[in-house]
Each structure stands twice: as structure tokens, then as C-alpha cells.
């Protein structure tokens, strides 16, 4: 494992990096405590205003729905895609056709988001006018978000799998004649960290996207970034916007910590009753 001395050096580097990552957020939190109009000192005025702002919370709700649904679907599609490309693609194939999957998988990453959004808008309008399906709204935003999240999951999964010994798969294939079983019992556990990472990246991409959401949105679908961009354009970065950011990140941090401590506690009590578990493999 990592030698102790190197471990200290790594900690010495990592903690300042974490601090740096959170400094802007601390500043956001600080600005959210701006004084109430014509008062001195810090206050929770912005939070008070925010709590009565239905539009902001509606936007937050829509963004959460969009992020969770799109990341879940993209994780499923992307994991399969990454696995399939790593496992079943002939290595010796040459020519344009063999390169096609790579070409396709990179397009969502390299396409400028504006071109992405406008293309999809035109496409959805066209489909809607012909078939009556895909009216602009949550569903079109969802499709667009899934599209730009898939490659991030697929490439992360691919990166995890591609260094693995191919014999492992062969062996599993002998063990479980059924391809599905081998996928469920061998592949999924091995790529878990990549699946989780891809899912988190998907949420990150979705929750912060403005351009593609704006163009694929229908009447009434205002996501959090759309709400915030628009509010900044007319009112500037207000303490309320900072309060919104603080509330959001604060809630997530509290949930993450709570979940961590509760699950650790549970694990400890379980270990007290039952014999300790075997060494976990591929643990995340």
C-alpha cells in the first residue's frame, strides 16, 4: 500500500486542495448573510425572503427531478455501452465502420452546448409537428440530459474495465453460461466505483446545465440554472441567490455526513454481533 511518509505528504497536499475547493462556497455563504435593507450587521434576511419565493423552490425541484432521472437512465445506458465496447468489440477490426462507435460516443462531449441545444430543439419541434409526441417540456429536457451524460458514464466504465485481465471474463463465461448472470455477478461489482462515479458526474452535469436546458425547455419548465441566470440578468447576484446556493450545498453536505455516520454506526453494531466480514473486494 501507500507508504506512511508518502501518506503524510499526500494529506499535506490534499487538505489544502479541499480547503481551496470550499473557499468560494464559504464566500457564497458569507454573502448570503448580507444585512437586511437599511440595517447594519449580518442577518438571515435573504433566507427569509427565499423561503417565501415559490418560484425558486419550484426551479430547485425541477432541477432535482431532472438530475436524478437523467443520471439514473444515463448510468444504465452508459454502463452497458462502456462494457459492451470494452468486451465485445473486435480489436482487429479496421476501417470506418469499426471506428463508428468511438465517433458516436465522443460527439456529446465535443459538441458545443449551444449547437447541441439548438439542434435538439429543432429536432424535437420537427418530431412533435409530425407525430404529436415529444412536446417541449420535462421529457425533452430529460432526453437531452441523458444524451450528454451517457459518454461520461461509458468512458468512466470503459476506463475501469479496460485495464482488467480479459481472462477474468473468459473464466466467468465458463462459470456462468448465461451472459446476463456473468454481467450481474461479475461485471457490476467490478465496475461499481465507475458506476457510482459516472452517476455522480451525470448529476453534476445535469444540475449545472443552462444552455441545453434553456433550449429544450417548454413553457413553464424553469430549472434552477435558468432561474438564476435570468435573475442575475435583471437583479444581479442578490443575497437570495447566494442563500439558495448555500442552502443547497449545506443540505447535501449534511445528508452525506449523516448517511456516512449512520451507515458506519450500523456496520459497527453488526460487526459486534456477527463475525467480521471477509475482505471486501473492489470496495467503494
Amino acid at each position, binding site marked *: 500500500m501507500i507508504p506512511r511518509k508518502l501518506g503524510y505528504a499526500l494529506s499535506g497536499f*490534499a487538505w489544502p486542495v479541499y480547503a481551496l475547493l470550499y473557499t468560494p462556497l464559504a464566500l457564497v455563504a458569507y454573502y448570503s448573510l448580507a444585512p437586511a435593507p437599511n440595517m447594519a450587521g449580518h442577518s438571515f434576511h435573504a433566507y427569509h425572503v427565499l423561503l417565501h419565493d415559490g418560484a425558486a423552490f419550484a426551479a430547485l425541484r425541477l432541477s432535482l427531478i431532472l438530475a436524478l432521472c437523467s443520471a439514473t437512465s444515463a448510468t444504465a445506458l452508459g454502463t452497458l455501452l462502456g462494457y459492451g465496447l470494452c468486451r465485445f468489440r473486435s480489436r482487429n477490426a479496421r476501417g470506418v465502420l469499426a471506428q463508428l462507435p468511438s465517433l458516436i460516443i465522443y460527439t456529446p462531449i*465535443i459538441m458545443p452546448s449551444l449547437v447541441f441545444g439548438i439542434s435538439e430543439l429543432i429536432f424535437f419541434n420537427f418530431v412533435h409537428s409530425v407525430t404529436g409526441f415529444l412536446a417541449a417540456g420535462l421529457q425533452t429536457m430529460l432526453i437531452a440530459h441523458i444524451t450528454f451524460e451517457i459518454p461520461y458514464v461509458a468512458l468512466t466504465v470503459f476506463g*475501469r474495465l479496460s485495464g482488467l485481465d480479459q481472462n477474468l471474463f473468459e473464466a466467468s463465461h465458463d462459470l456462468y453460461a448465461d451472459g446476463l448472470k456473468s454481467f450481474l455477478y461479475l461485471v457490476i461489482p467490478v465496475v461499481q466505483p465507475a458506476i457510482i462515479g459516472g452517476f455522480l*458526474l451525470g*448529476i453534476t452535469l445535469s444540475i449545472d446545465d443552462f444552455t441545453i436546458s434553456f433550449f429544450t425547455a417548454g413553457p413553464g419548465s424553469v430549472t434552477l440554472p435558468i432561474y438564476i441566470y435570468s435573475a442575475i440578468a435583471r437583479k444581479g447576484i442578490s443575497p437570495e441567490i447566494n442563500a439558495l446556493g448555500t442552502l443547497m450545498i449545506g443540505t447535501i453536505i449534511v445528508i452525506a455526513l449523516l448517511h456516512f455516520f449512520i451507515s458506519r454506526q450500523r456496520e459497527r453494531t453488526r460487526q459486534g454481533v456477527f463475525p467480521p466480514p471477509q475482505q471486501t473486494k473492489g470496495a467503494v
Partner: protein
Amino acid sequence: MSPARTQAEVEGRRQRARLWTTSGPGLVWIMLFLLIPSAGLLAIAFFSADDYGNPVLPLSTQPFQQVAGFSLLGWDAGNIAIFLRSLQQAGIATLAAIVIAYPLVFFILSRPPAVRPLLLLFVILPSWTNQVVRTYAWLELLGPNAPLSWLAHSLHLLPPELGLAPGSLAVTSGLAYNYLPYMIVPLYASAEKLDWALVEAGRDLYAAGIKLFWHTVFPQTLPGLLSGVIFVAIPAFGDYVVPALLGGDKAMMIGSLISAQFIETPDWPYGAALTLIMLAFTGLGLVAFRIFSRKLGGTGETAI
């Protein structure tokens, strides 16, 4: 026809069937919802623009002449400068992200397995606040009244009235800050399965330090690193939010140039032509990157 060959053919067909049942849905999804629609939009690069920038017939090469720098007002080297500048910013930001990501990932791995997901999550969490809100805070941190700028003032690197932001340093650091999670996650996913036995074996061969890292750790984490480079370099190349906020668009980047052609000063054929050229260069870059990565990894299995 020899039986062996038939068997190979059957096996090949089966392999292809498996490829399509696993990869098919994702690939078809992207094709249907992005490739086909964007091909339609980018085709307007070959049209003329009317007064409002909408594509009209006849077909024309004018959009590409505009990309090369010709406009109503004569030739201008602006576009070339924009392209090179974007390339430089994205390159530096990617390097910075790599340099930060490696120690951070191994720091996470040096902790007990139960804490690791939490530490990973905490790298990503800052990105869940709004990018504009976050970037404005970053702007304040690099402003004239912040400690970093005081340092620059006292070293006479900067006049006392000005801040580090807006400027190219602010843009680079902002890009690295923004895209760091996209480097960390794939790198973590591939470093997490690192075979430490190989590293121990290498310790006898290569002593320690950089050499050990280069010969044992680096090849094993290469697949993750390559995904990370793609996740950071390409979006950073086309980003227009960070340059606008932290660079004040003082020095325009390719993403801003494209966005202006579709939004602020519409000229859609020109915008489409710019996008096509940018896609072509990114595609070439990816091919070069693949060849390079295969050389590094020794096999063809490191990047898709």
C-alpha cells in the same frame, strides 16, 4: 470452407450480437438524439445568411471564408488568435487538473475504504452549486481586495488598483477548478483497482519516486487518466461561461465566438461553419491522442 473458419465466423457473429445488445441502446440513443439533429443544423454551414443571420439559399462558401477571418470589414487575424488562445487555455487547465488530481486520488486511496466514497463525493459537491454563483465567488477571491492580489501587488507583478481577475490566469484557474471533478472521478475509478503487488515488485526494480510511479502506477491508471483528459480538455476548449465571467471576455475564446453567432449577433451559417471546423480539429486531436495513448499504454485497449 474449413470448419475452423466457420466456427470463427459464428463466434464473430455472436460477438457482434453481444456488442449490439449491450452497446446498441446507448449508441442508438446518441445517434438519434444528437448525431442526426446536429448534422441537420451543421449543414447550414453551406448556406448564405440573410440580414437576420438565418440560413437562406443559394449555397455558399462565405461562412468558411468568415471562419478564415474575412468579413465585411476586411481580413482579420482575430479568429486564429482565438483558436490558439482556446487551445492554450484548455491545455494548461488540463495539465493543472492532472497535477492536482493524482495526489488527491491517492490521498483518497490512502484512507480506509469506508471513508473513500465520502472523500470522493466531497470533491464533486462544490460543482453542485450553480456555476455562475460559484464563479462569481472565485472572481471575488481573485479581485483587487483579496489576499492573492495583495501578494501580486507586493511582488510588483500587478498595479495596486487591479486584481488577478479578470485575466488569463483567472480563466485558467477557473477552468481547472470547474473541471477538476471530471478528472478525479475516472482517475479514481481506475486507480482504485490498482494492483499493489505490481508496485511492490517494481519497488525492487526501480527504487522509488518518480521512476517507480512512472513504471508501475502510471500504466495502470492510464485508462482513467485518458478519460479524464478527454472530459477536461474538450469541454474546457469550448467553454464560454468561465472566460466570460473570469476573463470578462477580454480575450475571446472559441466557445464565446460560436455562441455569439447563434445568439447575440446572429449569423447561423457562420456559427455552423465555426462549429464544423472546431469539430474537425477536435476530431483530429482525438485521433492523435489515441495514437499517442496506444504508444504509451503499449496496447490498443487504453482508450475507446
